[in-house]
């Protein structure tokens, strides 16, 4: 109370001409601060990773062995591979479901259902990841092992990605739990994007005799594309960096294998697993892994942005 009054009094005491530049300056400082922070983090990471970078060079990225027993050898390939596979799987499963939810919430659901459902979806986005992990261990893992994975194997078992013994904690299970975790994010943000499409756009399509689906596809989805892409990238960000739930589901095995029923490992999960007991060189290698993860996120973001721009431009041409 008191402090607010003081702030207001100070603000009132300032000459009018000072207010605007002051505000501008403060915002600029905060904005530049974020960029500077990112730079500082990168620098600190690079500095701490230096012993590992010097020792292993580019072979760090290609190396498939992580052994802290002397002579120490550290390689990142299995973790990079695991991160890419599980995140891709998460999007493959999660995106269609999320879009279904978003379209239902914005276009199809009756009004009385819309609001409670929206709240619930947004609530799911706030569940801590360790809770998803526990659910994964006690519910998803046995279900995957005894129901889903055998069923998948019975129908698609000829594919190399579905071979081996299903044991329930593997790359497939990790992909599924990540899908469950990205669905709330992607559907909530996509719903916003769909709602942002003007109502008369829909009305125009309907008045031309389009069905509900044609309206959604032609008049709504097409115009919300950029927003939906953004939502997917947000979801991907969560999937790539997720630690706890993945550790609890992926089986933590440092190997590259084609089958989704084999155990794997991701970058974030490996860092979390090994930070506490790491020796000096291993610590440095873990930090280099962190750098690799940051770089990967950056590349994915840039790539996605380029893709959005291309898709949008093509959209304009067609329209």
């Amino acid at each position, binding site marked *: *109370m008191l*402090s*607010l009054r003081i702030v207001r009094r100070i603000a009132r005491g300032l000459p009018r001409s000072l207010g605007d530049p002051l505000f501008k300056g403060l915002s600029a400082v905060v904005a530049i601060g974020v960029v500077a922070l990112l730079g500082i983090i990168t620098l600190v990471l690079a500095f701490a990773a230096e012993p590992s970078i010097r020792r292993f060079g580019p072979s760090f990225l290609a190396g498939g*062995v*992580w*052994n*802290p*027993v002397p002579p120490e050898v550290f390689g990142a390939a299995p973790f990079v591979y695991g991160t890419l596979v599980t995140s891709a799987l998460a999007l493959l499963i999660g995106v269609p479901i999320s879009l279904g939810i978003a379209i239902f919430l914005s276009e199809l659901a009756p009004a009385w259902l819309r609001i409670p459902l929206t709240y619930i979806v947004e609530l799911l986005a706030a569940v801590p990841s360790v809770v998803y992990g526990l659910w994964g*261990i*006690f519910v998803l*893992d*046995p279900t995957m*092992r005894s129901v889903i994975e055998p069923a998948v194997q019975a129908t698609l078992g000829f594919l190399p990605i579905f071979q081996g*013994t299903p*044991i*329930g*904690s*593997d790359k497939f299970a990790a992909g599924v739990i990540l899908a469950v975790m990205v669905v709330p994010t992607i559907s909530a943000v996509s719903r916003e994007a769909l709602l942002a499409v003007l109502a008369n756009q829909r009305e125009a399509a309907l008045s031309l005799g389009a069905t509900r689906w044609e309206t959604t596809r032609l008049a709504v989805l097409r115009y919300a594309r950029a927003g939906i892409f953004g939502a997917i990238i947000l979801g991907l960000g969560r999937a790539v960096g997720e630690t706890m739930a993945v*550790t*609890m589901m992926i*089986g*933590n*095995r*440092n190997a590259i294998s084609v089958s989704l029923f084999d*155990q794997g*490992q991701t970058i974030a*999960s490996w860092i*979390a*697993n*090994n930070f*506490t*007991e*790491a*020796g000096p060189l291993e610590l440095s290698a873990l930090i280099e892994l962190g750098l690799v993860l940051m770089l990967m996120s950056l590349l994915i973001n840039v790539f996605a942005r380029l893709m959005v721009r291309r898709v949008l431009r093509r959209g304009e041409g067609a329209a």
Partner: protein
Amino acid sequence: MLIAVGAIVVVAVVLLYGAFAGWFGGGPITLVGAGATFPFPLISKWSSVYVNRTGVRVNYQAIGSGGGIAQITARTVDFAGSDAPLSPTERAAAPGLLHVPETIGAVTAAYNLPGISTGLNLTGPVLVEIFRGNVTMWSDPSIANLNSAVPLPAQAISVVHRSDGSGTTFVWTNYLHRANAGGWGTSLVGKSISWPVGSGQLGNSGVAAYIIQHPGAIGYVELAYTVQNSMTVAKVRNPAGSFILPSLNSTAAAAEGAAPSLPAPDADWSQVSILDAPGPDSYPISSFTYLLVYKELTVIGSSMTQTKAKALVDFLWWAVHDGQNYSADLVYVPLAQAVVDIDAFALQSIRYNGQPLR
């Protein structure tokens, strides 16, 4: 406006809470330790009992053995906890650190074979073959020969190990190496290793949960977790030829048997092991967990006053004597008298500015 006021009130309450908690909670002396997670429940029990008895607070941060050794080497904590003794390199970096064994951990071979209860007989060499991936079925002759009375199912073995660096892994891999040095080489011995087969789980609790969930699974779990989760565990053959079930008693017997061979407190402990300890009732897979403390406490720096040094030694003295009475309830193995005597000798050798404290 209302929101702003609310926010300020919340912040103020949080800050005040911190200030008051620190004010009322702060005794005249706080001892700071850091290190292994394994003894954390025991040390935190000691800490809560000890502050009521003496007013001296003990703040132990379970950051892992490696972190504890790094902190005590940098002299930022008063004592450290470690599941493994200092390696010669670590010892050279922190001269004058004493090893004080404070409790004993046993590592069990826990399994999940529906219909087969606790007490399957196993040996070190067979465990090596299982963890190597050479024995893949529970009905394998090497297991069946040890268990002629038990009908073993033709079930695949799924091996589970720790995914995080851990003192438990250190003890387990050392045991496998000891059982068959050719089959389990030194490159497979450490707090975290590159495993030939199996999947990894985070923490003792993760490995325990995995075993409980997966029929056919076998893994290594700290004794306390197998007791608390009523898990099925194997009897392991000791050097005397008996198959021993892991328990507080059989682990204590192992420590008792090993006591005569322990080095001086300030000597090199890196070769100390109570694996395969002598004695007909000794469980073969166990190890000490250590408190590390400087022999000359002034090296910690100005934060270590004479009063504080005395309080530290008094606390450690209490922990290895009366403190052992709290072990069994928390499923820790109380130190055998012979080991308590060794600890007492170590604590009496601690000095502040050359003056004895005890």
